[in-house]
């Protein structure tokens, strides 16, 4: 009875059921009542690891190498024990950083590097395409075999089909459409597909039941249990070889390398990462998966050897491909329903893998390959587009279709040369290249972007050379001599015995060289390179994921506008979804709406996470940078906040810093206060001195006025004497007041200056004339020593005269009582004029030579005879001379007289200009 129509009907019905489950799963997820939120579903979905390779291929490999099929499942079993350590950390890191794929993970770890994300995507795509081809091959050949029922005929033997007659093409297209419907119905920031996970879990159940059904039928229906089966099988030729590993160490080596390889694959296959990390709802589900998943693997493998032996016993050697025993045994035994169930089981295994793998890869292609390129392509103006969610979905759908077709092409070109298992191992070896960058990134802070780039590149190239190219050669794309003699007949370059390394199997050989180079380059380049501060920050976030939960935002410093950020996220997620996300975020923080949000680091971090889900971490950073004014992150800052992940240290360091700053500020304040107090004291002193100086003449004036008033009978001579004192003291008081005001004006810069070009000689002669009366009274002789020609100087005539008068009257006061002599000399220096006013008096103590220029300080304060004067003349003179740009000083020794000297610079065009300016500003 041919099954033709029934196969198609059942297949369609089965796919329909899957779709219904997925649809229901999504609906429930939207309603908040997730059906996948339990550890059993999670563990079952992990069994996406078991593909048609397991379903059909295990038996094939067992027929060739006995227990040799087992390492592929023992590795994951061993790794499951480490799930709690490793996978939980991957989940924690990914949740905290909104990582949606392996490419994203590696890119984010090494400073959100778009280049690295692209490279990982490329490796994943190139590496996994053979694996997808394998599924297509399994589905189409199982379909073709079952189609022939009840005849058992191997498909494609000798006949070349055009693509349009090729079932595999239709399988590929059907699966592409199915995956697109499944995985890209809408865009979600978390990149989670609850419905798909539910369907995958269901598929895991179906393929397990189907396989167990065949196993039970064969073992207990066809034979009388395991013992009977093995007893009969013992009669098979060469059966001993299948039940031992064989003696030489090489076999143990290959056994070990396969266990190791599959340990890495369970973590780093894109679909495993998708299911175990991205789709994980609750990291505690992992606990149950630790034993449920190995148990599943054990269950699906327990009947592999019985089925293999049964097949070998049932079919004459060489007539039926061992890869098809699972299907052909029930067919040969006329168990059409069982055969149909097996076909559906195989379909489950294949579709499950293809769906998850292509969704995972399409996310990577979109986020880590297409978007970074498109966003940098300015001509497209993508950065300005308002809603990119449609474009994102389009890219993903295109990527799924493309992957499926690539898988088909590979299948057509190379598929026939390899058994199912061998194709799968090529892919395993490719994704194993992620191990150093991934594990190093999770446990080693010093791993750098450059290290990861070089390690991945080298590992990938060696994988390409030692595994993929030989596969091409075997498929006839390259000459076979490439394998047998090496390129250009260079023996040590033989791809299957690189550098003469022989004795390992293909996989072991490739794994050794590629991982050696990969790990070596990763560690070496990392150790001899430097991390950027962003890389370092990310490294700490990843390695210390369990210690620093959700601290990412603290690394951001800058400013942004809330509306801009929301609009940006809206362009990728769609405005409605973005609005919802931010409203939820606002509600979480107790705000009424997203309008009340503050554009702080947390908000930007949240936005980056949302974007990262849609377009990947690296692109998200680029996009956010366009609306966010980010301040460069200094190494010290990063270290200060996160170094060694010790927030306590950072906190105390910050406190220390703050208290240090506070101390500094207090110190400055104290100093400023002291300065103010000093100024205050000086001002007080000045006022007190001024009042004292003013009170002295005032005292005389008042006393004599009262005396005159109270004694009208005073004799005229005495009366005249008293009145003269009053007049003199009044003059002194007036002079003093004028000088105090004058000095105040000079000091505050409000004095008026009328600067002109002066002949100094005239001014000196003028001063001599003015003081002639005084000189005569005191009997002092004034001698001038002036050169014939004096160049003009720029100065205020009245002010200069004031200085000269002051110096002359000082000299008069202090010169010798009996034979007073004063000399005024002028010298023309290269850049200035120098005026000396010399007396022959008692001289000035060196101690007093500075103080006489201070206000109200007079030489001889401690002398019996109090000198005349206000004590302001010299300070005023010095102010004036300094204003002209010159200097006023005194040279003297006790008993040698004193010489007051000042200079006036020549050619003061500049000073004149400023004075002119000041005149207009303050001029009357």
């Amino acid at each position: 009875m041919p099954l033709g129509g029934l196969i198609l009907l059942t297949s369609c019905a089965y796919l329909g059921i899957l779709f219904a489950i997925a649809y229901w799963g999504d609906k429930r997820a939207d309603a908040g009542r997730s059906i996948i939120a339990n550890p059993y579903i999670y563990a079952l979905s992990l069994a996406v690891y078991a593909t048609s390779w397991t379903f059909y291929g295990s038996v094939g490999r067992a027929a060739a190498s006995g227990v040799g099929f087992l390492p592929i499942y023992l590795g994951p079993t061993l790794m499951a024990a480490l799930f709690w350590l490793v996978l939980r950390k991957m989940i924690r890191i990914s949740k905290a950083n909104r990582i949606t794929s392996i490419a994203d993970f590696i890119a984010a770890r090494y400073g959100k590097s778009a280049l690295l994300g692209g490279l990982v995507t490329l490796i994943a795509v190139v590496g996994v395409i053979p694996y997808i081809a394998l599924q297509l091959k399994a589905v189409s050949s199982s379909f073709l075999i079952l189609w022939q029922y009840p005849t058992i005929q191997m498909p494609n033997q000798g006949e070349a089909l055009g693509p349009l007659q090729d079932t595999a093409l239709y399988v590929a297209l059907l699966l592409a459409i199915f995956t697109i419907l499944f995985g890209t119905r809408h865009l979600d920031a978390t990149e989670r597909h609850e419905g798909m996970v539910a369907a995958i879990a269901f598929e895991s159940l179906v393929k397990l039941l189907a396989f167990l059904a065949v196993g039970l039928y064969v073992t207990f229906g066809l034979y009388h249990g395991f013992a009977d089966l093995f007893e009969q099988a013992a009669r098979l030729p060469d059966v001993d070889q299948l039940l031992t590993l064989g003696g030489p160490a090489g076999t143990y080596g290959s056994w070990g390398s396969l266990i190791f390889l599959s340990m890495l694959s369970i973590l780093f296959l894109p679909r495993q990462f998708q299911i175990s990390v991205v789709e994980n709802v609750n990291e505690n589900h992992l606990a149950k998966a630790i034993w449920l998943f190995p148990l599943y693997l054990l269950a699906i493998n327990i009947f592999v050897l019985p089925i293999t032996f049964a097949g070998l016993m049932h079919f004459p050697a060489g007539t039926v491909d061992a890869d098809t025993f699972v299907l052909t045994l029930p067919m040969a035994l006329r168990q059409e329903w069982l055969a149909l169930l097996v076909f559906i089981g195989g379909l489950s295994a294949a579709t499950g893998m293809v769906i998850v793998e292509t969704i995972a890869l399409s996310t990577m292609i979109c986020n880590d390959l297409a978007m970074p390129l498109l966003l940098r392509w300015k001509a497209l103006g993508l950065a300005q587009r308002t809603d990119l969610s449609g474009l994102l979905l389009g890219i993903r759908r295109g990527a799924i279709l493309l992957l499926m077709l690539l898988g088909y092409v590979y299948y057509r070109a190379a598929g026939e040369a390899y058994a199912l298992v061998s194709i799968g191992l090529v892919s395993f070896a490719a994704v194993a290249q992620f191990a150093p960058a991934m594990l190093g990134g999770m446990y080693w802070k010093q791993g750098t972007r450059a290290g990861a780039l070089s390690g991945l590149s080298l590992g990938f190239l060696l994988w390409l050379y030692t595994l993929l190219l030989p596969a091409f050669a075997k498929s006839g794309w390259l000459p076979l001599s490439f394998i047998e003699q090496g390129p250009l007949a260079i023996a040590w370059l033989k791809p299957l015995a690189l550098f003469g390394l022989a004795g390992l199997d293909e996989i072991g050989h490739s794994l050794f060289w590629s991982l050696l180079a990969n790990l070596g380059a990763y560690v070496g380049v990392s150790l001899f390179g430097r991390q950027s501060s962003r890389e370092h920050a990310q490294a700490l976030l990843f390695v210390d994921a369990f210690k620093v939960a959700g601290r990412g935002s603290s690394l951001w410093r800058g400013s942004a506008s809330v509306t801009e950020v929301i609009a940006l996220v809206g362009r990728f997620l769609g405005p409605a979804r973005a609005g919802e996300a931010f409203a939820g975020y606002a509600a979480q923080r107790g705000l009424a709406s997203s309008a009340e949000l503050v554009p702080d680091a947390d908000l930007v971090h949240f936005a980056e996470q949302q974007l990262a889900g849609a377009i990947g971490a690296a692109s998200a950073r680029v996009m956010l940078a366009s609306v966010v004014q980010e301040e460069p992150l200094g190494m010290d800052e990063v270290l200060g906040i996160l170094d060694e992940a010790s927030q306590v240290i950072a906190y105390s360091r910050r406190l220390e810093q703050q208290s240090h700053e506070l101390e500094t500020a207090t110190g400055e304040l104290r100093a400023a206060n002291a300065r103010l107090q000093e100024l205050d004291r000086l001002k007080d002193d000045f006022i007190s001195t001024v009042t004292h100086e003013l009170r002295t003449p005032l005292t005389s004036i008042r006393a004599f006025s009262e005396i005159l008033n109270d004694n009208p009978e005073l004799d005229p001579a005495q009366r005249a004497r008293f009145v003269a004192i009053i007049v003199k003291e009044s003059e002194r008081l007036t002079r003093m007041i004028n000088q105090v005001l004058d000095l105040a004006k000079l000091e505050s810069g409000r004095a008026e200056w009328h600067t002109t070009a002066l002949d100094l000689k005239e001014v000196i002669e003028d001063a001599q004339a003015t003081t002639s009366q005084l000189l005569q009274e005191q009997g002092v002789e004034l001698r001038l020593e002036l050169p014939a020609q004096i160049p003009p100087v720029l100065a205020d005539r009245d002010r200069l005269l004031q200085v000269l008068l002051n110096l002359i009257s000082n000299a008069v006061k202090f010169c010798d009582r009996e034979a007073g002599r004063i000399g005024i000399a002028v010298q023309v220096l290269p850049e200035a004029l120098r005026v000396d006013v010399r007396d022959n008096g008692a001289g000035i103590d060196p101690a007093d030579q500075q103080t006489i220029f201070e206000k109200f300080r007079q030489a001889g304060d401690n002398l019996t005879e109090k000198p005349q004067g206000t004590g302001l003349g010299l300070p005023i003179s010095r102010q004036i001379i300094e204003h002209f740009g010159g200097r006023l000083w005194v040279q003297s020794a006790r008993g040698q007289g004193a010489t007051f000297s000042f200079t006036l610079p020549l050619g003061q065009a500049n000073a004149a200009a400023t004075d002119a300016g000041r005149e207009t500003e303050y001029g009357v």
Partner: protein
Amino acid sequence: MANRTLRAQRLVAVFMLGCLLFSYPLLALFDSGGEVFGIPLLFAYLFGAWALLIVAMILVVERSNR
């Protein structure tokens, strides 16, 4: 939390036991081609060890859950 690190350590121990069981030289002991209860020795050993590991994992995970 102490419970969790203890669980992780026990699981690492299970992992190491598994590595030991599934590799040379222990593997070689059972690679002699004999049989137990009619089942090939290596086959029985591998699946037995595998089951043992799973039981150990169940014990570690489920017991530390209480």
